[in-house]
């Protein structure tokens, strides 16, 4: 959208929705959003066509019927004027008698009234189910459109880099997915259905009135000019307020989400009151913004109605005079030649219809500003180009035969802050590479680059000599299993959590993976075994148990590259030994990367890479590194040994 940079360079990712571009919004934006949304209708176009046909047919049937029914009621039955031929035919009364002054007596009027009422009721009842059915159908269609937009948005969000996610709140994403995307259902209503029904209705009413009285029809058409001018003045201001309302509500959603997420810390530090105050503040702000937005909208709607109403009162007054004078009509319409009471009522109904449709159009226009802002917020995210994208000629990774090579890797979040610099590393299939170093030295980042969660700022990573950027990202990630440092579990069953990265894994495979991770025992002891539902983030389990599930999840992918990021930090010594034994057995013909601080684990590696401050300080086997007298690794081992000896 306007004003939002779509480049994904490292500094260009500002936070979303700072509202800075709101002043630049105008009609073009709304039209552009409409065009974008129309293509969302493509998958349901058959249904839309059917729906329109249905509504069109029903309306075509009902419109002339209602005209005849109204005239028969007012002019004929109530006033006693003889019926028109077509009316007599419709109500199946003797034509000659009904169309003559004398023959249309009270008895016949009663008969017609009886039929009018009964048939009217029956027609009403008969038409209700198809109308209701079509309405329901319309909702189903629009829900489908909304569903597609939601899922597309989620899918796009998932493809955006971690940097984007770190800069934007979860609550904001949730708000965009739930609330902003819902506007698509109304956009169709507001910018397609309403204009398609209300504008013709207005024109039709104006035309009918113009047929009876050309001057009045012209006046009615004139009302459009001032209303458009006023509408433009209001809509600019409404959009700004609608945006603020959406932003504050999204912020409130975030506030709730973050509070619940951090509830333990809040409790432990007695910050409940503080959080409560912050919530009350955010809630107040959201309501205030909503008030300003909705109030302006109501004032706008009222102002518009005042405008139409003034015209309508004037037109009615002129029309009344015409009836009193029994003026001749400008043209003969459906057999009417002069102004009479029935025509007057019909005229008033048409005028009412015209005002109603104008009111509809302008109210809808007001709402459309909010709808556009909502959808703008959806497209704002959709227009963000993912930092990591497949090249057009990207190929799938067919397997890993030989090695993974990090060549001159450099990475920085911000220009002046290198996280990794000039890292060169070669890892072969069948080897365990231990990545060692102080916290914050870039170990996890190096692995994130291997998964292509980011692109390196400089240098490249090659698998069997092929640069990662030439591979399809999805197939690359299929070939890498990772057990994360933070053991994230999802609100699902144990089984589903283990096969998270490989949904088609069989139960047997799930069990086998759990056995490798030494998780089988405790899972079997859970109330429902593998079908036990975990709370969100797996909070029912101890951290050691979560860690083992997360290892099982990595194992089950059966990928040639395995990354274990501090896999045993939360395990007690006994379990750790078991897990490591199983893993070294299992990982025999894979390339294994192991980030760890534990010497006992490190020593089992074929190669040790020592990172410090983003630089590869040294690398080699345990023995090689120990041979270097001033080596960082050696110092680490020495320190550990002294500590261990003290312990004994």
């Amino acid at each position: 959208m306007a004003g939002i940079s779509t480049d994904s360079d490292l500094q260009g990712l500002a936070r979303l929705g700072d509202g800075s571009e709101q002043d630049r919004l105008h009609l073009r934006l709304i039209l552009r959003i409409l065009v974008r949304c129309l293509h969302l209708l493509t998958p349901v176009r058959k249904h839309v066509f059917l729906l329109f046909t249905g509504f069109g047919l029903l309306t075509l049937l009902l419109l002339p019927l209602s005209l005849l029914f109204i005239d028969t009621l007012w002019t004929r039955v109530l006033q006693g004027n003889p019926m028109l031929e077509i009316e007599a035919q419709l109500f199946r009364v003797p034509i000659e008698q009904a169309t003559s002054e004398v023959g249309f007596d009270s008895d016949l009027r009663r008969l017609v009234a009886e039929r009018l009422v009964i048939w009217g009721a029956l027609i009403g009842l008969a038409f209700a189910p198809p109308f209701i059915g079509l309405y329901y159908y319309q909702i189903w269609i629009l829900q489908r459109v909304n569903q597609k937009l939601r899922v597309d948005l989620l899918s796009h969000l998932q493809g955006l880099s971690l940097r984007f996610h770190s800069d934007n709140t979860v609550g904001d994403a949730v708000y965009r997915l739930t609330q902003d995307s819902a506007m698509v259902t109304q956009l169709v209503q507001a910018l397609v259905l309403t204009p398609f029904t209300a504008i013709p209705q207005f024109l039709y009413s104006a035309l009918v009135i113009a047929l009876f009285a050309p001057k009045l029809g012209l006046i009615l058409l004139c009302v459009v000019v001032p209303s458009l001018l006023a509408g433009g003045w209001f809509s600019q201001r409404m959009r700004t307020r609608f945006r603020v309302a959406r932003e504050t509500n999204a912020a409130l959603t975030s506030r709730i989400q973050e509070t619940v997420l951090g509830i333990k810390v809040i409790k432990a530090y007695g910050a409940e009151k503080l959080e409560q105050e912050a919530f009350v503040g955010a809630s107040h702000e959201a309501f205030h913004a909503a008030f300003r937005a909705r109030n302006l909208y109501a004032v706008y709607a009222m102002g518009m109605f005042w405008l139409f109403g003034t015209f309508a009162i004037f037109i009615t007054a002129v029309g009344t005079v015409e009836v009193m004078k029994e003026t001749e009509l400008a043209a003969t319409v459906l057999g009417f030649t002069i102004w009479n009471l029935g025509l007057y009522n019909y005229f008033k109904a048409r005028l009412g219809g015209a005002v109603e449709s104008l009111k509809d159009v302008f109210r809808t226009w007001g709402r459309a500003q909010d709808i556009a802002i909502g959808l703008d917020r959806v497209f704002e995210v959709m227009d963000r180009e993912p930092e990591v994208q497949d090249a057009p000629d990207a190929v799938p990774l067919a397997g890993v035969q030989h090695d993974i090579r990090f060549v001159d890797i450099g990475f920085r979040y911000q220009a002046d802050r290198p996280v990794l610099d000039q890292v060169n590393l070669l890892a072969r299939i069948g080897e365990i590479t231990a990545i060692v170093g102080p916290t914050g030295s870039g170990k996890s980042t190096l692995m994130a680059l291997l998964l292509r969660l980011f692109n390196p700022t400089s240098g490249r990573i090659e698998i069997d000599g092929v640069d990662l950027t030439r591979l399809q990202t999805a197939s690359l990630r299929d070939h890498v299993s990772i057990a994360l440092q933070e053991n994230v579990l999802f609100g699902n069953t144990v089984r589903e959590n283990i096969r998270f990265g490989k949904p088609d894994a069989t139960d047997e495979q799930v069990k086998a993976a759990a056995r490798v991770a030494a998780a089988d025992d405790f899972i079997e002891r859970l109330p429902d075994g593998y079908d036990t539902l975990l709370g969100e983030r797996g909070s029912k389990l101890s951290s050691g148990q979560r860690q083992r599930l997360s290892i099982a999840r990595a194992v089950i992918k059966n990928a040639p590259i395995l990354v274990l990021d501090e896999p045993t930090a939360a395990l007690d010594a006994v379990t750790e030994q078991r897990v490591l034994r199983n893993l070294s057995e299992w990982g025999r013909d894979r390339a294994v990367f192991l980030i760890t601080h534990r010497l006992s684990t490190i020593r089992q590696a074929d190669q040790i890479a020592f990172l410090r401050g983003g630089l590869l300080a040294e690398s080699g086997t345990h023995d090689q590194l120990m041979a270097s007298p001033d080596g960082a690794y050696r110092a680490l081992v020495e320190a550990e040994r002294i500590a261990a000896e003290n312990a004994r």
Partner: protein
Amino acid sequence: MMTPGNGPTSGLAESEDLTHWQTLQVIARAVRFVKPFRSRFAVKIVLIVISLIPLLMLPWPVKIIIDNVIEGQPINEPLRPYPEALAPWMNALAGYSPYELLFIVIAFQAALFLLIGAFGTTGSERESTEGYLASGYDTASRTENEANSGFSLAGGLLGLFDFRWTMRLSQALNHHYRSQLFRRIETLPMPAFDDERIGDAVFRVMYDTPSITNASYRLLLTPITAPLHILMTVAIIGTLYGDHPELIYCALAFLPISFFATLPVAGSLRRMSGRSRKAGAAATSTAEEGMSNILAVQSLGGEENQKARYETDSWNSFSRYRDVFRLGLYAVLIGAIPGTLVGAYAYFIAIDAVIAGELSRGDFGLLTTYFFHIITSAQLLGGLWFSVQDSAAGLHRVFFLMDSPGEEDDPSLPSLTPIRQGLEIDKVDFTYPDGTAILKGIELRAEMGQMVALVGPAGAGKTTLAYLLPRFVGPTRGSVRVDGVDISGVNLSSLRDQMAFVFQETVLFDATVAENIRFGRGNATDEEVREAARIAEADSFIRELPEGYDTPLGRGGGKLSVGQRQRLSLARALVRKAPILILDEPTSALDPETEARFVSTLRSINRDRIVIVIAHRLSTIRSADQIVFIENGEIRERGSHPELLAKPNGRYQDFVALQSGGED
């Protein structure tokens, strides 16, 4: 540790459905809840009455135009006598020519129009004020209108005032209600919270609370305004056309018709609404979970899986909402059949009266308009029960959380005086309601200046034991005492003020580094913040951040490494300067060097405090004054490191051997 599946409120164990009686109770409770707003409700009722009066006068100008202007009947010789209240006004108009009358009527209409935004009889020439915005076809997006509900029967200046008053009232109600729910959520005890889904909490606070608006308006406004509207209308018809009471009966018949048409489906509506809300909450949860854990989703290749889950949950929420909607349509349809027949009969009577010369055409227009006035209100009253079912489902979900037992922080309880001696855990058991014993007969003492290490296999109950001290959980037997005072008898905030807790999972907030550290103690000076960061070995990396201590961390501290986040959470605990410091695996992500430095600094500052640490690392454990080895919820061994090592065949000895096993 929490044992799986048996937390006190594991899952959302709320009942799926309510009986009609329970529903009544829920709604009655909502009405009691709005008591503080009663004067504002009273004003709203007055506003409704004020707007009804001019609305009822609306048909008169139309009648005058038809009968007296167009048809030219003399105004003082009406077919039917005017109602008493109006007679003087009508008679005052006698003697004017039709054109003069037309002018007067138009002027009157224009004035009425400015004031109440209406001038004709039909709906189209009338503006009722509202500020409803577009919403989608799912429960969540529908509720924003409800929370900000503003409406008026009238338009014009009166309508605008009424509208603003109502919206302010709705917002105040919702603000009050959701703040209460939020406060409740904050006080829910910790194990309950572990099981709640965050998206569900968001849904309840944001989208279930607005049910209070509909429920209270329906119950407080409709029963007053609808009968009033009916009575006023009936009085007018009665004086005008008293010889046709059938018409009034017909109109009133819509009350039982709507009631009986909707009653059989009211229960279904409530259930379906409940399901729709549940499905909406599930979709919100799935989205929230995926976004919160985006690193896991991306690195484990779970995008397709997450997308499929969301696709299912989202469509489910749409479908369940459609169920609610379908039921509403169905209720309209079944009510329409008897309604149309009764309406047709009433019409026929009125037409017959015109044919017989008993009524003028103008009267007919007037009569049918009033007829619809009565129908509208009669349907509102008759469908009242049906129309609150959706709200009842939402309210039930809110009250469910509000009723979940929270931590009782009784401010009338004495405050805990600053700790001087030490703390004592005396014969404590902790058992979940389902009988799973987590802790058995725990006895533990810690003196000021002591460091106690809790050691044992995963799932042994170490974290639960630590949770006893700040009363995150209460013992099922035995007591926890600080300086000899049972902590269950002191007020909670004074207890927690004396403790700093570092959790296994690091949670940081979307704020600057300094703000995150200062979360431990709001009034800590910059110097104290830096001091805490130095002890936690965080100062050096913080200084390297682009804006140092003022660097915004982003969501969840996403830009820092896990070890850096852990150090910030240590600093947050240290800045609190609380006499009791509880660390649950505080150094798992730190490298040995950093850890060693941290532990030795910790030792040097703990002279005037008690440090309880849960750890697997020998290097941390070793320096403790007292090591407590826990297994299966029981204390197996205790003593200092050398003492325990000296124990032949001790559990701790095995543990140490394994830890250092294989190392040179």
